[in-house]
């Protein structure tokens, strides 16, 4: 049984300027102990997808489709009781997620008291053990400090300790290291990998960085303008990317090993989702687009477990022509 199943999830936002289709029939599953990355640029719907799983979307959002946590449907009531228990989350900016009025130790202990019914004394002892486990040096002293006394990396470690205190089935990490320096980012991602291996928690990692995906994900969903462009294991996606958007994105990231004459650049900008183009939403920016791209492409399984939503895929045919 999967830790998470998302089945044809659609999200619409009702705004003053019309209806915005942020997510359109997105499906994926995550097994226990696996990391699924959802990767894409601003406005692709990756964060809205995460918030829908958590039940934290704003009131103007309308959600369709099914979400199941360990097989059980995640209704709004189920989300409320699961959040902070079976369903944990960490966000980009730990400062806004931590309470400035309580010590970090109290906040980890609170999670344990609420969900495990521990006495205050036992909860604090466990909280200090959790802080040690996320490699906070001198944890007993740090537990008595407030969020503003900690560095960004330390704060994110505290968030991870809170998230994992109750042994969740699923951890949603939305750009968890985007606000951190690169050497600290590496530490936090390595810590998440290690804790996932130890606890068997399933992880949904939301990121814009294909490098992070390559190093830390088992499976990948590439999103563009609210839809799944490509879905595969990380190994397959990087070995044989199929969707033009994935291919362009890989070529747009500069490399350390050599200077390229020019970077691949995807012309234009992402479409306005209040008024998306008909058919394939990537077609207006796609060098491989043809007239038939005006019809919405289905997500097709090109190789076992490797899906792409492109009528031109596999593009190897285009190369051969």
């Amino acid at each position: 049984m999967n830790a998470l199943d998302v089945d044809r999830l659609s999200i619409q936002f009702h705004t003053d300027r019309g209806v915005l289709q942020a997510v359109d029939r997105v499906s994926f599953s995550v097994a226990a102990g696996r990391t699924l990355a959802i990767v894409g640029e601003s406005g692709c719907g990756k964060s809205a997808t995460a918030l829908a799983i958590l039940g934290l979307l704003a009131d103007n959002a309308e959600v369709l489709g099914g979400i199941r946590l360990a097989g059980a449907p995640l209704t709004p009531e189920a989300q409320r009781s699961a959040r902070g228990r079976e369903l944990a989350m960490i966000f980009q900016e730990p400062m806004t997620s931590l309470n400035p009025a309580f010590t970090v130790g109290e906040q980890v202990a609170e999670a344990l008291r609420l969900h495990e019914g521990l006495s205050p004394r036992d909860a604090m002892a466990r909280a200090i053990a959790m802080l040690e486990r996320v490699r906070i040096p001198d944890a007993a002293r740090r537990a008595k400090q407030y969020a503003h006394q900690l560095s960004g990396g330390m704060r994110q470690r505290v968030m991870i300790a809170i998230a994992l205190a109750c042994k969740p089935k699923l951890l949603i990490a939305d750009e968890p290291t985007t606000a951190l320096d690169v050497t600290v980012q590496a530490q936090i991602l390595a810590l998440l990998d290690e804790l996932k291996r130890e606890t068997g928690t399933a992880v949904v990692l939301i990121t814009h960085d294909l490098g992070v995906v390559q190093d830390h994900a088992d499976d990948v969903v590439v999103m563009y303008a609210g839809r799944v462009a490509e879905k595969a294991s990380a190994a397959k996606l990087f070995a044989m990317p199929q969707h033009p958007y994935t291919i362009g994105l890989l070529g747009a990231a500069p490399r350390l090993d050599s200077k390229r004459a020019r970077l691949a650049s995807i012309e234009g900008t992402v479409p306005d989702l209040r008024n998306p183009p008909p058919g394939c939403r990537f077609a207006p920016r796609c060098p491989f687009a043809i007239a038939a791209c005006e019809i919405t492409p289905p997500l097709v399984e090109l190789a076992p477990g490797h899906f792409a939503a492109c009528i031109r895929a596999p593009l190897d045919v285009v190369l051969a022509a």
Partner: protein
Amino acid sequence: MLELDAMVKHFPFRDSLGRARGAVRAVDGVSLAVPKGSVLAIVGESGCGKSTLGRLALRLIEPDSGSLRFDGEDILALKPAALRSKRREMQLIFQDPFASLDPRMTVEAAITEPLILHKLHRGRQRARVAELLERVGLRPELARRWPHEFSGGQRQRIAIARALASEPRLIIGDEPVSALDVSVQAQVVNLLGDLIRDLGLTFVLISHDLGVVRQIADRVAVMYLGQIVEEAPAEKLFRNPRHPYTRALLAAVPGQGGALKLLEGDIPSPIAPPAGCRFHTRCPYAEAICREVPPPLVQAQEAAGQIHLAACHFQDTLPPATPIREAAADARLARLQSFFIPNREPTA
């Protein structure tokens, strides 16, 4: 040519009673030279002093000590009026194109402003604005639009056009592409490369993104807690990093770093940097001398004919650096990606 010598800038801070309580040692003795027409990148993590150094290089802030020369002229000796006219030749591009454009000015007004200020192209300023917009890959008809009508990438192009309006010889880009999505970032990186080459610009790129640095820079200076720890030609720095901090930075780049040897701990506070080598608290190779004696920035002996400086007591005896990962030769991917690479940036 831009020359900074022994630049120092500390920001003192006071407590609520107005008593001096210490200082952030943002830039603490930095010397750099940027030859005409070349690109120097200053890299480092937050708080290393790279942005302060960029502002010092344009004399947007006054140093506590040190000297600043541009084409041999002592910039720190200039009177305010002379400095203002010198600014025509020295421009800055910021990270956030949403903050750097006035929302109440059309694109045309924003780009015309420096022309008026420096009395350039009188009588044909409108035509000059059109040229500048085309130069940065925007259609001239867009001149009458307002900043809010543009995407982040387009705004950054407008900010670049405005910086180019006064025909500068030196541009400092402070994280000029960091706020952009990868696909748009690639467009602007390609544009900056074209402009630097075609206009013979001298460019100082301040960035935390080593990939962007690799793509644009000729030379790279790595900063840590207010000081330069290594400076070398880009190729040498990425292939043969000599300082343990440079190695750690490269290793930490996701998807491309070497075998990960993680740095322990966080960057110390620039208010009270560690004694001796400032990196010793996180350095896997630190020994007793590193805690006491600051290492000088010295030329590497093996760097035949090239200037490769590093500040590490053990730079000649460290184990070889773990190489960065090479991209697998993938002819299929390269051919498919070539469809995304125009010769020139198209007009957006």
